[in-house]
C-alpha cells in the first residue's frame, strides 16, 4: 500500500494556501471563540499567607483538644479536687 508522502506534501501546500486565503476570517473566529483565562481563573489569596493561617488554626485546635482531655485528667486527680472546688465556688460567683 502506498504511503502517499508526495501526495501529502501537495495537500499540505494546498492547506497553506487556503489558510492564507482565509486568514482574516479565521482570525476573527479565533478571537470570538477564545477563552479569557485571566478573567476565568479564580483569584485566590496568597498561598503562603493561607498556609500560615492554617498552621495557626491547627495549632490552636490541638491545644483545644488537649484541654478537652482535662476531664479525664481531673478525674484521675480524684474526688478531693471536686470537694475543695465546691467549697471555693460560692466565693467566685
Amino acid at each position, binding site marked *: 500500500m502506498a*504511503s502517499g508522502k508526495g*501526495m501529502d506534501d501537495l*495537500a499540505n501546500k*494546498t492547506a497553506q494556501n487556503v489558510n492564507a486565503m482565509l486568514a482574516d*476570517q479565521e482570525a476573527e473566529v*479565533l478571537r470570538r471563540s477564545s*477563552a479569557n483565562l485571566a478573567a476565568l481563573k479564580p483569584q485566590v489569596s496568597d498561598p503562603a499567607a493561607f498556609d500560615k493561617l492554617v498552621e495557626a488554626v491547627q495549632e490552636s*485546635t490541638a491545644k483545644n483538644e488537649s484541654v*478537652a482531655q482535662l476531664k479525664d485528667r481531673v478525674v484521675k486527680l480524684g474526688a478531693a479536687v471536686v470537694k475543695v472546688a465546691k467549697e471555693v465556688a460560692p466565693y467566685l460567683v
Partner: protein
Amino acid sequence: MWTLRRLPITCASILLLVAACANVPKEVVELSYRLGQDLGSLHDSYKTLVHQHFDSLRAQRIEYLENVWTPAFVAAWIEDGHLVAVATGKEVYSEEKSSFVLPTPGQEKPELLASVQMWSESALRQIDKKKGELLSPLDKDEKELVAAVAEAFARVIRGNAIITAHLNSLRNVQEVQDELLSALDLKDLRTTINTRLATASDKAQKALEEVKKADAIVAKRGARLKGRNQ
C-alpha cells in the same frame, strides 16, 4: 501537700476561665461541616459550567472548520490534486516520481484506485490536522482552567475542614467545661454569666441611645440660643 494547698487557686482559675467562654452550639459545627459538603457540590457544578463554556467555544471553531475551511480546502485540493484528471483516467499519481503521470497500460484501474485513495487520505489528514490546530489551544486552556479551579476549591475545602475541626474542638472543650461545672454544682454558671453580659450589653446600647438623644437636644438648644443672640 503542695498540690492540695494550691488546689483552690487552681480550681478557681479553671472556673474563671471556663465560665468566661462563649457558647459554641453544635449547630455551628454541623453548619461548617455541611458547608464543606456543599463546596464539593459547587465544585462539580463549576466544572460542568467550564466544560459547557469550552464546548460552546469548540462548536464555533468546528462550525468554521466544517462550513468554511473544509469546503475551501476540498475545492482547492480537487484542483491541486488533479482529481478530475485521475477520475477520468487521464492521469494517475506516481509515488516514485512524486507527480501525476499517464496511467500504465493494463494497470489503469488499480492505479486509479490507489491514486483516489491517496488523494482522499491526504485530504482527511489535512482536515484532521486543521481540526487539531483549531481545537488544541482550547483543550489546553480548558485543562488549565479546570486545574486552577480544582486547586482553588481544594484550598477552600481544606480551609473549611480545618475550621470545622477547630469548631469541633471548641465544642469538646465546652462539653468538658460543662461537665466540670456540673460536678461543682455550678451548671448554670456559664448561662448566668452570658445572660448578664448580654443584659449589660443591651443596657450599654440603651445608654448610648440616650446620650445620642441628649446630644441632639443640646445641639438644638445651642442653635436656638445662637439665633437669638444674632
